[in-house]
């Protein structure tokens, strides 16, 4: 190898090494700034106490209600996006003819490209007053509103990944099923979907990760009350919203500042676990 070849090779190594550096940079900065919060509270208290009063004297750093808030909106979002996204995937891959397909796919892609802050605006300025009117609620910015908006945001993720997986199912499986007398619906439910199971599960987990980490929508739409909700119509304050809302008002280096990084650690761990699960699903499928 001459010098130029070696240089080129080295550059590709350095570039890909950067991805590892960035990942470690993220992890290190979270832990470096987040761990000091445990000088002021215990891990158990941090996670299982529901009192989040970071500016009181003495402050209380319990994030249980924020964690619960995150899971409530995320599950609410999945309840909407799984049927809609999976439905769209099955329809485009199994039923729609080519023309319909060519209209549907760009629609889903457009949906994926809409910035989250514009969804937030829609939830705040349009959906919230609408919900107040329809359901006679005192406040329109609540877990329900955030679930709807987040749910719509996750639809493109679930539908595009599920559809990829459905389209890799060999045609002869469908033909065999149809030849045995099963109709289209039975073929979809009993042959195609089970065969595409790992891809579908993958899409749902990725959708979960997207929904639990989404910031702007829950910041603008979820209502911002750090409490464990009694109903889906209560305002809540999910983890990302807390970090985004309070970081700007906190002096660097204060216990509150470290507590916000502590929340980010928990958030990172949850998303990291979901990523590991998808890796595991993919790996098992390869075997």
């Amino acid at each position, binding site marked *: 190898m001459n010098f130029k070849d070696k240089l080129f090779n080295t*550059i590709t*190594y350095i570039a890909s090494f950067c991805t590892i550096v960035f990942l470690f940079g993220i992890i290190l900065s979270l832990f470096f700034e987040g761990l000091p919060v445990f000088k002021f509270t215990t891990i158990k208290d941090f996670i299982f106490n529901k009192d989040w009063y970071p500016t009181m004297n003495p402050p209380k750093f319990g994030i249980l209600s924020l964690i619960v808030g995150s899971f409530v909106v995320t599950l609410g979002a999945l309840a909407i996006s799984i049927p809609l996204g999976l439905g769209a995937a099955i329809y485009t891959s199994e039923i729609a003819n080519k023309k319909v397909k060519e209209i549907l796919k760009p629609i889903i892609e457009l949906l994926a490209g809409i910035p989250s802050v514009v969804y937030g605006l829609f939830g705040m300025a349009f959906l919230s007053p609408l919900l107040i009117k329809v359901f006679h609620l005192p406040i329109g910015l609540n877990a329900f509103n955030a679930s709807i908006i987040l749910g719509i945001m996750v639809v493109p993720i679930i539908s595009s990944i599920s559809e990829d997986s459905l389209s890799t199912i060999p045609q002869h499986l469908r033909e065999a099923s149809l030849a045995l007398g099963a109709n289209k619906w039975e073929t979809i439910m009993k042959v195609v979907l089970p065969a595409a199971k790992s891809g579908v599960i993958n899409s749902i987990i990725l959708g979960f990760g997207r929904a639990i980490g989404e910031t702007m929508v829950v910041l*603008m739409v979820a209502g911002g009350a750090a409490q464990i909700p009694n109903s889906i119509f209560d305002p809540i304050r999910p983890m990302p919203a807390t970090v985004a809302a309070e970081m700007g008002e906190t002096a660097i280096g204060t216990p509150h500042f470290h507590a916000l990084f502590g929340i980010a650690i928990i958030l990172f761990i949850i998303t990291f676990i979901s990523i590991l699960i998808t890796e595991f699903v993919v790996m098992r499928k390869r075997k």
Partner: protein
Amino acid sequence: MTTIRRIKSFIGINFLRLFILLTASFLFLFLYVIFSKGGSVVNWEFLTHSPKRFMTEGGIYPAIVGTFWLTILSIGFALPLGIFTAIFMTNFAKPYWLVRIVRVAINTLAGVPSIIYGLFGLTVFVRLFKFDVSILSGALTLGVLALPVIINASEEAIRSVPKDFRDASLALGATKRQTILRVILPTALPNILTGAIISIGRVAGETAPILFTAATFYTRLLPKSVMDEVMALPYHIYALMTEGAHPAKQVPMAYGTAVVLLALVLLVSTVAIVIRYRIRKKRKW
């Protein structure tokens, strides 16, 4: 028996249709609301003037400029890095374990919530490197966020180049580097660019990563250098909705800003979709 099966099938398939219809009608309602409420706000003055009287009058020109610089710089940073990483991931024997680690790193980066990128940018670029709250800090943060998208798109583009091309080039005596730079990359380039364009749309619309690294609510001045803080379109929408004392005047302006941002993002992704469609039609292999 068969009638029941037929009814089940009928109901099932129509439920799928209903779901599609719901999704599509939400999209149309959404676009209708944004464009009908914001469309009337957008005019020449709105696009070319600075905000006045604490955001209640004037335009969003500084925010457009800010988003432009943030986007250009972040893609300029992430694109070369992403392409080289994609080359690493796709070409020639590399140690398997290393490829595997890089793959996990990319997938993890792709799944990290955007607010965490914001904290990373705050810790590393703003404080450690002392870039302060600036275009540079924001663009680097956004660049790291865009990196996995660009890598994945480039990787897919490179993989779609037929193996014969590579083999032919190598058989003619070209080195790996020459093969990559003169045969594989030029063939994959349109697809790589499509990926880059898609990530432009993504980066331009991100808010959380620039909250603490680049964005400022109100400035009448345009940035003079990359070390200045800027207004940005997505952050401007958020700020108009949550700060300030005149919601009645700010909400229409937020809708107007949303129209500009959406038009930008939709335009960019439409361009990407059209380019990709053309490539697929023209391709001869």
